[in-house]
C-alpha cells in the first residue's frame, strides 16, 4: 500500500499578520488538510476565521464566490448560520485579545478533491476556540463552497485583526490510490 499522508509545508508567524497564504500547491494529491493552531489579536474573546482560494497559479479570488453553512455549540446553545455570495468563506474560529495569554484555537480544514476541474470545491472545517479566562468557547463544523471548478493552487487564511505571532499553519496532502 502506498504511503499517502504527507506534510507539504508549515508556516509559523514570526510577527502578527492578517493573513497567510500557501502558494504553488501541486495537483498531485486527492485532498488537502490544513491544521491551524492560532490566535487573533482583535478585541473580544474570539474571532472568526476565513478562507480565500486561487486556481491556475493566479491571484487569490476576491469575488463573491464563497458561502458557508455552519453548525456550532457555544456551551449554552447550539445554532446554525449561513453566509452566501461572500468575498471570503467563513470557516473556523480562534481565541482573540481577551482570551488568556496562552490560549490557542484549533481549526482543521479539509479541502476535498481539490485538484479536480469538474466540480465546485467543497471544504469542511472543524473548529474549536476556547478563551480560558472568559468562560467562552465553541465547537463548530463549517461546510463551505467555492463556486469555481478550477484546481486549487493557493489557499489563504484570514482572520479579523491579525493572526498573532506564533500561530502555526501546516499543510498536508492525502493521495488516494
Amino acid at each position, binding site marked *: 500500500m502506498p504511503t*499517502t499522508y504527507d506534510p507539504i509545508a508549515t508556516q509559523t508567524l514570526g510577527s502578527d499578520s492578517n493573513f497567510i497564504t500557501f502558494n504553488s500547491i501541486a495537483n498531485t494529491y486527492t485532498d488537502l488538510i490544513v491544521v491551524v493552531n492560532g490566535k487573533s489579536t482583535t478585541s473580544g474573546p474570539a474571532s472568526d476565521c476565513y478562507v480565500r482560494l486561487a486556481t491556475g497559479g493566479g491571484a487569490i479570488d476576491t469575488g463573491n464566490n464563497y458561502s458557508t453553512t455552519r*453548525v456550532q455549540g457555544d456551551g449554552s446553545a447550539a445554532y446554525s*448560520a*449561513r453566509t452566501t455570495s461572500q468575498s471570503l468563506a467563513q470557516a473556523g474560529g480562534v481565541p482573540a485579545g481577551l482570551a488568556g495569554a496562552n490560549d490557542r484555537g*484549533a481549526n482543521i480544514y479539509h479541502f476535498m478533491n481539490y485538484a479536480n476541474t469538474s466540480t465546485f470545491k467543497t471544504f*469542511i472545517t472543524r473548529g474549536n476556540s476556547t478563551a480560558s479566562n472568559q468562560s467562552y468557547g465553541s465547537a463548530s463544523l463549517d461546510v463551505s463552497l467555492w463556486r469555481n471548478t478550477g484546481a486549487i493552487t493557493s489557499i489563504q487564511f484570514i482572520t479579523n485583526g491579525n493572526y498573532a505571532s506564533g500561530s502555526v499553519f501546516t499543510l498536508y496532502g492525502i493521495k488516494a490510490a
Partner: protein
Amino acid sequence: MAPILGIWASAQTASTLSSYDSIATVTVGAGGASTVTFSSIPQTYTHLQIRGIARGTVGGSDENIYMQFNGVAGTSYSWHRLLGSGSSVSSGANPSQPSGVITVVSASGSTANVFGATIVDILDYANTSKNKTVRGLGGSDQNGSGYACFQSFAFNNTSAITSIDITSSANWAQYTQFALYGIKG
C-alpha cells in the same frame, strides 16, 4: 501513542506517517452508478476512513449517504445526527434500519457542479467481539441552502467488516468519488 481520529493531522509525526494508507478509490463515470463498493478489505488496519465528494441523482437538493457492511441489511443499523440548516439545528435518530446513514450531500436539484463532502471513520472494523461504530462529518453548502452534519451510526453485528456498499436513494452522479484509507494502530 496512536493519534486520535479527528485530530489525526495535528498528531502526525515523521515516525507515524506510514500508518495511513490508501486502499482503494472509486470515481463514478458518465451515466452514474447505483452503488460504490469496497470489497476484500484487508484486515491489517485498526481503523478505516472514507473521504469523498458526492452528488445524488434523486430529485430535490439533498441526498443521504447510506452504508451497508458485508452485505447485511435487515434491521442491523441505527443512526443519530446533528444537523445545521443554516438557520436552525435539529437532531434525529432512527433505530433498526436496513443501512446506516452518514452524511447529507447534494442532489440533482442542487446548483450545477455542487458536490457535498464527507469524512467517515469506521472504528476497530476488524474486531470480532463488538458491534461497530461509525462516525461522519460533512454536508453540502449550496450558496443559500444546504446542511452541515455530524452523524454516527452503529452496525449491530460483531463480524469484521470485509466489504462496504455506499448507496443513495437513486444513483450517484458522475464525478462522485469515495476513497478508502486504512489507519494502523
